[in-house]
């Protein structure tokens, strides 16, 4: 009872109510959040936020859980933070993801996001699926999954990553609690974490500049030639490193960055071990290099064939005989004709 009073008197402003809603997700972002070192998950609950609903870890289940959700929305309208993890499937009216049953009827993720979104103080899209669609929205997108922003008519703060780094989400939540909305980039990602490209922060940048490249995973050089997406990916992995203890990151583990914080991930980043994504024409799929090679071969063969034709028909010889002046060529022709006539007569 005391707690409730304190909240109503404004103490909740210090520890705002937060809803962690899981939609079409692997739950990897929540497991990553659990890896946060300081603050840990416990300090997050006691010092930073008032967790009202957590699709993965809450004690309640069934209608009790959904009632908690409903009460939060009623009690804290305009004050709670909605964190959505996962993309939102739209196929079959959202039935491809059900978050629970209310009075025996399925509540879809689509419905939940649309109902919870408008009343939230902030909406945070946690992970690449929620922010941009992610792996489940990759072609042919069997579940018709879309990002959170696509079903909400209000600003959404995107905190992508597959999974998100614990610091990225914890830092974003801390910013929201302490200082309000962080400065966002053009894809609504907090600049605090996504300002710079992996490539510009990479410890192996000098190998790139000097042209020293790994030719297979496991080698200690620049991963550019085996498809590293560092140059086109905005995140601070090289500085921050994974996970809670900041020990390593994919390039340090001698593998390419696969661009998991980018809007095009993974569709625009696959094949992961190729520099450029596949080229898809109606009914045909090939690699960018395939197009390059085909263009090279066609150009080479066409010019070769034309050259052969020009030599065989004497056109090339004619060109050189004519020389640099049309008039000169005429003169040569005239003298040739004269010579011929003489020899005939």
């Amino acid at each position, binding site marked *: 009872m005391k707690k409730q009073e304190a909240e109503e008197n404004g103490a909740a402003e210090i520890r705002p109510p937060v809803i962690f809603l*899981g939609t079409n997700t692997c739950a990897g972002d929540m497991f990553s959040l659990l890896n946060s070192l300081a603050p840990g998950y416990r300090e997050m609950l006691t010092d930073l936020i008032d967790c009202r609903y957590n*699709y993965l870890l809450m004690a*309640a289940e*069934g209608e009790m859980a959904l009632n908690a959700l409903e009460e939060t929305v009623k009690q804290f309208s305009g004050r709670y933070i909605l964190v959505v993890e996962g993309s939102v499937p739209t196929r079959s009216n959202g039935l*491809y993801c059900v978050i629970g049953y209310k009075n025996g009827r399925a509540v879809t993720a689509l419905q939940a996001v649309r109902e919870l979104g408008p009343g939230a103080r902030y909406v945070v899209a946690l992970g690449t699926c929620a922010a941009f669609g992610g792996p489940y929205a990759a072609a042919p997108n069997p579940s018709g999954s879309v990002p959170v922003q696509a079903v909400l008519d209000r600003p959404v703060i995107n905190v992508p990553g597959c999974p998100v780094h614990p610091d990225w989400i914890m830092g974003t939540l801390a910013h929201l609690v302490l200082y309000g909305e962080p400065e966002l980039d053009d894809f609504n990602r907090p600049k605090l974490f996504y300002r710079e490209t992996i490539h510009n922060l990479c410890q192996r940048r000098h190998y790139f500049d000097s042209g020293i490249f790994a030719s297979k995973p496991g080698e200690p050089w620049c991963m550019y030639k085996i498809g590293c997406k560092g140059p086109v990916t905005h995140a601070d992995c090289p500085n921050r490193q994974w996970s809670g203890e900041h020990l390593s990151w994919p390039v340090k583990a001698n*593998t390419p960055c696969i661009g998991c914080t980018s809007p095009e991930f993974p569709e625009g980043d696959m094949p992961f071990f190729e520099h450029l994504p596949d080229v898809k024409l109606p009914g045909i*799929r090939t690699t960018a290099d395939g197009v390059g090679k085909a263009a090279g071969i066609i150009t080479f063969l066409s010019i070769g064939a034309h050259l052969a034709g020009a030599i065989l028909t004497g056109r090339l010889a004619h060109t050189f005989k004519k020389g640099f002046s049309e008039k000169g060529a005429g003169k040569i022709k005239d003298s040739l004709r004269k010579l011929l006539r003489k020899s005939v007569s």
Partner: protein
Amino acid sequence: MPKIMIGPVPRANNVVALEVTIENKKVVDARCTGVFFRGFELILRGRDPRDAPYLTLRICGICSSVHGTAAALALEDAAGVRPPKNGNLLRNLIHAADTLQNHIRHFYLFSLPDYVKGPDLGPFRPAYTTGCRLPPKDNDALVQHYFQALEISRLCHELVVLLGGKVPHTHGLLGGGGTVPPAADIIMGFSARLRKINDFIQNVMVPDTYLLAEAYKDYYEIGKRAPALLSYGHFPRGENDRERHFPPGAMVDGRPEKLDASLIREHLRFSWYAGESGLHPARGRTEPDREKEGAYSWVKAPRYNGRAMEGGPLARLWIRGDYRRGISTMDRLVARTLETELIGKLMEEWLGELEPGKPVFTPFNVPREAEGAGLTEAMRGPLGHWLRIEKGRIAHYQIVTPTAWNFSPRDDVGRPGPVEEALLGTPVENEMEPVEVGRVVRAFDVCSTCSTHVIVPGGPAKEMIILP
């Protein structure tokens, strides 16, 4: 006869739903529903086979490294390569560290809230008010261990980071082996953390499990079913994968059998999929159909020689011969803890076998036409990836996950899945707070995120693949 629908059922690595029918305070019928669908196999078609490990990692956030391992095994099977000794050890260590993480988080974060009164703090509130039997002292100790387990499971994930760059969805799992050459600093960092983890397992987790088993003795009699168990075996002993630390095998009608993967069939009658039922996963072709009459789950019903098989730590230890007390809810929990202890010790051995300076990765060319299978054990049971490569790209990919085995709906002839069967006869004291049902279900370590992606559409996509 009251029917209750429980959904969401959290603490199951994402959400599942259950429909149970209760008569005379006992469950007389149960239906398990996988509530979401993603379609990974369909997304994989036409992709570079080397991408399969990194993409399939993303099926599941808690057991991602297992999908990476299975995909790498399938690719290696197709390409006819094996990782070098170090590569095999690195992969075992990553897989094992992630398993410790899973088991510790499962016991403390997922299971415990069913038995213990949590602190007055969201998301431990609201919670059921009945069913907590532990005296306050023990209860408080377990709550403290809940938070300690958060630290220790984080350490398990840091082990994966050391060998794989990041976690979840680690990068160090590839067809061909590992990518981080073992060196003194990494081995030292690994072993120091592993010691802390093993200390916790032996001195906290094992006693806690027995404390719980003592207080909830009746759960040795709840959630029972006959031993129909399956394990694909995991942790290859040598780089040639002739033997595994946890051997493959099956228990049918209480008799041990050799594993024959060709006996696996996928039934579809009660799943939201159209297509031919009863096919082997290497051939299975289905498409989602949410409006299908009579169906009630996104999970398919895999059957082994026509039987609903249970997988997980209990099945593995049973087949290995380490634990054969019985098959019940409490046996499942105890076996999980004992397996955690066992794997933690094995990891110390493997760490000592690493050879700094020796290769970790075997380079290989992706074959133009090939087939491969990757069978291994996820934390919660048997996991199989089946792959066919045509023209250098993935032509067919099928995944049968452990939760499809454990949490499967009824099959074509109406036999229930293992969880459905185990739930029968479960006493429910208070229909408004069916805490007993959750205990039975969670002991299986149900993971809906990995079970509900299993789909390949009807006709193959008409697409010509041209690779230089």
